[in-house]
């Protein structure tokens, strides 16, 4: 006996075609109805077996290796190596202006000039944008363009 809540064989075939033969990949709201259909329909079971073959082939692809600590460390080095980022971290650690400038300078990759005054003035230029807030990670103009292209926000949802 069927009811309006039963899944048709056509709907079952559509869902199989999209999500394959593993129930775990199906939308939760469809699983129970699909299971009921499978209990009473040999056609549905045949479709399931056919589609599951592709799943098994895909599963032969294996799983890429985990990322590893080296990559993790490289990412931190790159992120924290940016002068403005170093300035921001020093600021969040409670460093004074000189400490922040020194942190940024140490991460700038530039040689130390002979005069401290020159160093300070150069660093003011390097981290000028970073002085606005305690954690200045404001994007530079190029990054802003990249962000626009990447559609940074989800406000449209």
């Amino acid at each position, binding site marked *: 006996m069927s009811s309006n809540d039963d899944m048709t064989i056509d709907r079952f075939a*559509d869902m199989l*075609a*999209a*999500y*394959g033969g593993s129930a*775990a*990949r199906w*939308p939760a709201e469809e699983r129970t109805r699909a299971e009921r259909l499978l209990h009473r329909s040999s056609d549905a079971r045949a479709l399931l077996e056919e*589609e599951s*073959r*592709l*799943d*098994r*082939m*895909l599963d*032969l*692809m*294996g*799983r*890429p*290796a*985990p*990322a590893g600590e080296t*990559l*993790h460390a*490289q*990412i*931190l080095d*790159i*992120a*924290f190596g*940016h002068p403005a*980022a170093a300035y*921001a*971290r020093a*600021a*969040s650690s409670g460093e004074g202006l000189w400490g922040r400038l020194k942190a940024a300078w140490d991460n700038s990759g530039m040689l130390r000039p002979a005069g401290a005054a020159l160093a300070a003035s150069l660093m003011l230029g390097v981290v000028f944008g970073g002085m606005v*807030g*305690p*954690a*200045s*990670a*404001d*994007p530079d103009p190029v*990054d802003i363009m*990249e*962000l626009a*292209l*990447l*559609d*940074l*926000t*989800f*406000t*449209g*949802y």
Partner: protein
Amino acid sequence: MVSDDRKSRSGNGTADPDLPLVRRIAEGDAAAFSTLVDRHLDRVVRLAERLMASRADAEDVAQEVFVRVWRHARNWKSGNARYSTWLHRVAVNLCQDRLRKRREVDLDAVAEMPTEEPGAEQLMNRKTVARRVAEALSELPERQRIAITLCHFEGMGNKEAAEVMDVSVEALESLLARGRRTLKAMLADEKSHLMGEDR
């Protein structure tokens, strides 16, 4: 900004576990950043490697994704989606950019992915099929390949995968169905091979 508590809940009504970290990252908290990287790095690398069939490119993409996280945490605006969804969308976009730049995929890299294999003869058989599957996947239209990677390999639910791809669930299902149909046609020979092994 990520200061609005209403927005710490994702579209499905559950709290987004990453938002407290993102707020701390926006304040320059290095430890929070390291924790976020630790939490998501494996999955981002895995996704990128599957999409680009290259470990080196996948690691480059992962670096770029997380450096953006660090540099732009203050600018991130939460909508209804989880932070991890945004992270995956950035990764997918970066992969697509790179794939557009190089049309030829290094199939050897895919075929060499480690698999859980039993012994000798079956191993040869499976490696052959796995290689053909990798080739067939690489020949799929890009968005079909992304849809299958997100849903089949990464186990994403249909709503999250649709958000990552910026399409409706119906469009995602269409991409999945077309991709799977094409794969079945391309892998018809291997299917009988595999069926023999199953018995």
